[in-house]
């Protein structure tokens, strides 16, 4: 006996609407029966559990998609949309036909223009489309060699079931996003329902991604056997950045930003830490019309100068081809059916909502006469372009719209409204019908288009949200084919093996890793040191006042150096990520200033002083500042980190926002919890990252920072002899702050002696916190870095220069800690200042040698 809709409490699809799960008589459709029994039998209890589990994993993966800049995170419904294999076969045939027609249209526009000249295309809409890229006209083909490559390697379509059957709401040809989210959704949902998916016969989707990798490799210019393929992202601010980095990691290609690429002699190169490396194929997520400020929009900030010329010459393939977005022009929907007949000589299989283009006099008069019943859309899609639902408009708004259309009729279409079918959705309490739109993905292969057997479904209570892709909850999509039924679930292929064996680190990514390392260390060192000071004073209350608060002055001086003095301009330390050379030099100045400052906690009390060190964002190296840089840096190179690392980084982000929200009394505890997260990040980076150049730069950053911060601390606490009686408390705090107190106690039973303290913290090569340990690690790191060309002084030499005074100091510790009547340990002071200078120079040399990128500026003469 099958389930009826009455058995699912509160599920009411309404009599007029088509539901995916139930037929018109209220009986469950065959494909849904097993799923329905498994999920709905217990009144939503197991669903709530699954939903919570998926939610946790989503947060852990850090999945995001900003919906038109609202910053909303990705949301995933636990119930997949099911499509049976016979529906799917029909869909595939229809989509295949449609994309062949669109490919022919794009090839015509950028080639012979026969369709355009014959008036078969909406001329005025096409020639004013921003994707009608004049510098690309007449190329007639995509890519190099003799073979004609398709413009639309990737294609996506938004589908819905309406009163007219399955209908194509829109086509995505410019940069069809979503396949990565579909894979991510499958990973999350099939994890929860592995057994059920297998029992139903769910077709796996990972194979399509292997096909994508192969297809990209096939796009390489002829004669290139070992192509370098990069994924070009506009940057971390792009709404779909998550997907771009996810694909980079999944496919094993280098993720690059426009500034990582350069054109030389008509060829594209990646600016990597090892020099310029040729690029043969670009999977492009930058909008076509912004890809080259020389030939296209001069004001583009995400372009690569010379890229269009390189592409025209065939030295690089771009996927999808430049200008492919022209096929998204909505005016095409008014004539696509006729075009399919004209171009392919076939009857159209799939329809679209009926559309009238206002550039055509007949279409225009129909639209203007029925404005109140239609959806009005601009012919070009974009975040800045709005659509109007006629029935929602006031008389005044309709008149405004009418005037707008009449002023530039070729820029608008009118479209009939379609009723979208509903699918079951779990809203946290019950299963409810929600309107659904399915995005499917095609990939051009030599044998024809291959379709991802699944897709990305979005659902919402409000049909216009999903129809316009402005919102809604996503769903996994299962194609149900009984021949795929298996007794045991086969886990999906999550990460494909690397194919880009020469995957390289861009200069930008290397710089980001270096600063992640430095900020990671800043954060850890600051928490440890603040905590040690807080515990010491907690244990010995008299330290507050003894000898005129001398202990407190000494420690506040040392801690102030770690966090940096507050910047007078509020929030100035928060601007941007740390990749600008200008900012780098400002930071160096701030460091120097901190080194010379002799102030305490700016006159505040002890507790609020500790809190200020941790959460005052005006301080250049406060905990929240450093964590902010660390997290934004990590986001921009997320493809270099494993999923596990992301999970702990997400936790760290959560800790940071807790710190920002924390009451003064909670800050220290929250900081302690933050230290745990930081240790987890450090552990994963140390234990699960390949020692490639990216990791080396991160480690170099860490080691330089740790050695520098410790040297500063020793300068402020040991070089000047503390007030008699307070020395043990100062030394103990320093040892605890640098995680070496236990080690010290184990070796030495006596009071803390300066010579033994200095030995342990500066010279002990077996102490992972000591300066010597960092310098040894730096020597190994820089030896593994690419050799800098044209450098007068090698970084290897600079590390040797730092090591030399440590070597000699190690054998003369007693002389170093000797002090005269002035209470100043001259030898130690000189050594530390030599170390600080050497480390600073090394940092500068690495930044200049490996990272510096010159900025380009557009110009034009009158």
């Amino acid at each position, binding site marked *: 006996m099958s389930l009826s809709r009455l058995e699912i409490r509160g599920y009411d699809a309404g009599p007029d609407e088509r539901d995916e799960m139930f037929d018109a008589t209220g009986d469950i459709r065959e494909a849904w029966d097993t799923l329905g029994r498994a999920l709905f039998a217990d009144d939503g209890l197991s669903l709530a559990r699954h939903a919570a589990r998926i939610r946790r994993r989503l947060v852990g993966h850090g999945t995001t998609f900003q919906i038109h800049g609202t910053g909303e995170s990705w949301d995933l419904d636990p119930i997949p949309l099911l499509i049976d294999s016979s529906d799917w076969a029909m869909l595939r045939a229809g989509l295949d036909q449609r994309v062949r027609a669109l490919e022919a249209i794009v090839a015509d526009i950028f080639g012979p*223009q026969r369709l*355009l*000249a014959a*008036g078969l295309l909406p*001329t*005025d809409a096409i*020639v*004013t489309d921003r994707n009608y890229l*004049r*510098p690309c*006209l*007449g190329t007639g083909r995509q890519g190099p060699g003799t073979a004609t490559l398709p413009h639309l390697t990737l294609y996506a379509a938004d589908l819905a079931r309406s009163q007219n059957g399955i209908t194509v709401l829109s086509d995505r040809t410019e940069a069809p996003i979503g396949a990565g989210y579909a894979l991510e959704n499958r990973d999350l949902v099939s994890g929860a329902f592995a057994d059920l998916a297998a029992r139903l016969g769910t077709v796996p989707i990972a194979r399509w991604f292997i096909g994508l990798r192969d297809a990209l490799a096939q796009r390489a210019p002829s004669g290139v056997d070992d192509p370098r393929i990069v994924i070009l992202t506009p940057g971390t601010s792009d709404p779909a950045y998550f997907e771009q980095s996810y694909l980079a990691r999944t496919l094993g290609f280098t993720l690059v930003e426009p500034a990582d690429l*350069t*054109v*030389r*002699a*008509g060829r594209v190169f990646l600016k990597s830490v090892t020099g310029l490396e040729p690029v043969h194929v670009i999977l492009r997520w930058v909008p076509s019309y912004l890809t080259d*400020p*020389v*030939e296209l929009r*001069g004001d583009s900030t995400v372009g690569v*100068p*010379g890229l269009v*010329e390189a592409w025209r*010459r065939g030295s690089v393939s771009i996927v999808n081809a430049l200008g492919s977005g022209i096929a998204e022009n909505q005016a095409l929907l008014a004539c696509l059916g006729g075009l399919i007949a004209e171009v392919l000589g076939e009857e159209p299989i799939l329809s679209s909502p009926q559309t009238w283009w206002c550039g055509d006099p007949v279409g225009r008069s129909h639209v203007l006469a029925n404005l109140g019943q239609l959806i009005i859309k601009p012919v070009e899609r974009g975040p800045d372009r709005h659509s109007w639902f006629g029935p929602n408009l006031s008389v005044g708004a309709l008149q405004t719209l009418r005037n707008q259309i009449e*002023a*530039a009729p*070729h820029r608008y279409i009118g479209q009939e409204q379609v009723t979208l079918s509903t699918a079951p959705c779990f809203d946290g309490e019950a299963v409810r019908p929600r309107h659904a739109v399915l995005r499917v993905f095609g990939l051009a292969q030599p044998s024809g288009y291959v379709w991802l057997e699944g897709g990305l479904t979005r659902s919402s209570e409000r049909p216009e949200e999903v129809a316009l892709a402005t919102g809604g909850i996503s769903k996994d999509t299962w194609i149900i084919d009984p021949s795929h039924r298996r007794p045991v679930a086969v886990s999906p292929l999550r990460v494909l093996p690397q194919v880009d064996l020469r995957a390289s680190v861009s200069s930008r990514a290397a710089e980001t890793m270096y600063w992640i390392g430095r900020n990671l260390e800043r954060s850890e060192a600051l928490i440890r040191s603040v905590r040690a000071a807080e515990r010491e004073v907690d244990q010995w209350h008299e330290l507050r006042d003894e000898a005129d608060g001398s202990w407190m002055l000494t420690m506040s001086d040392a801690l102030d150096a770690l966090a940096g003095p507050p910047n007078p301009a509020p929030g100035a330390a928060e601007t941007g990520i740390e990749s600008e050379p200008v900012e780098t030099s400002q930071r160096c100045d701030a460091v120097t200033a901190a080194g010379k400052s002799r102030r305490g906690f700016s006159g505040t009390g002890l507790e609020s002083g500790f809190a200020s060190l941790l959460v005052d964002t005006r301080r250049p190296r406060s905990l929240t500042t450093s964590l902010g840089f660390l997290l934004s840096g990590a986001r921009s190179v997320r493809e270099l980190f494993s999923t596990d690392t992301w999970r702990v980084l997400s936790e760290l982000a959560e800790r940071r926002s807790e710190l920002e929200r924390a009451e003064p009394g909670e800050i220290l505890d929250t900081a302690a919890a933050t230290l745990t997260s930081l240790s987890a990040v450090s552990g994963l980076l140390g234990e699960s990252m390949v020692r490639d150049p990216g990791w080396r730069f991160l480690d170099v950053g860490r080691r330089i920072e740790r050695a520098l911060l410790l040297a500063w601390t020793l300068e402020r606490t040991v070089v000047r002899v503390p007030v008699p009686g307070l020395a043990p408390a100062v030394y103990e705090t320093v040892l605890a702050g640098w995680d070496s107190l236990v080690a010290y106690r184990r070796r030495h039973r006596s009071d803390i002696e300066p010579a033994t303290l200095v030995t342990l913290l500066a010279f002990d090569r077996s102490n992972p916190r000591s300066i010597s340990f960092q310098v040894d690690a730096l020597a190994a790191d820089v030896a593994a870095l690419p050799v800098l060309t044209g450098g007068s002084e090698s970084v290897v030499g600079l590390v040797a220069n730092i090591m030399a005074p440590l070597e000699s100091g190690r054998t003369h510790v007693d002389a170093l800690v000797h002090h005269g009547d002035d209470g100043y340990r001259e030898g130690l002071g000189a050594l530390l200042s030599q170390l600080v200078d050497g480390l600073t120079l090394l940092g500068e040399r690495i930044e200049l040698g490996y990272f510096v990128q*010159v*900025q*380009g*500026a*557009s*110009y*034009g*003469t*009158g």
Partner: protein
Amino acid sequence: MKYRIVHRTTYEYGLPATMCFNLAHLGVRSTPVQRVESTDLSILPTPDDRLDRVDPFGNETTYFAIERPHSALEVTAVHTVDRCASSPPPSASSRWEEATLTTALADRELMLASPHVPLLAELKAYAETSFSPGRPLLEAAAELVSRIFHDFVYQPGFTTVSTPLGEVLEHRRGVCQDFAHVALGCLRSVGLAARYVSGYLETIPPPGVDKVFGADASHAWCAVRLADGRWLDLDPTNDQVAPSTHVTLGWGRDYGDVVPLKGVVFSAGGSTDLAVQVDVARIGDDRVPDVGG
């Protein structure tokens, strides 16, 4: 009349530029009223990469890149052009509405708004004063050009290449390029196809004053398509219809399609000095004409 034209653009950088990528629309094209005898574009330092081609409007363009540090860039175009006298063709005298009926692909994009020429409502109103129903195109166009000439003040420095057309209309000030855009917007607003023309015009010094080399300027005007597919040059800056002394470089929808020299320069900062010298000299004729720029 035969002209020798020299157009030299010089950039001097305070700090050396490390690389530059450029696109030049500095090649002169042949038209029914001008024959190109020779044309040459020389670039210093010699580019590491250079390719000449013809753009979709039929203009000669040059892509070039200098991929090594350089402290100056000098681009010099030298053309010898034989320009014959022109007069409005007979078709210019037919009703202007007849010219609006074209559906040819190449004309459509010249009938619609373009990036520098939005079809603002004011433009249509301004145009309709001259383009009254049934009027001969030549008459209406001549009046429009004359009105722009008288209503707008020629004031170098008031606008830049990126000043929006709305501001030009509001202040009624600008240079040749702005007036060409105004005229284009008017012509397109009433349904005509019109193109932006980039070129040169000889300047004549006052009697008794010697002409200084390089004192001429690049110039811009527009052209309207006639019913028979021929084009009529209109120069609102000089209140001229079908002038015989203009030498055409190339054309497009607006300034943006035929920027003489544009690109991206990579440098560590520092100042940039730009100098443009244009010289239009007659060859083998020293008669002083009675038209001026």
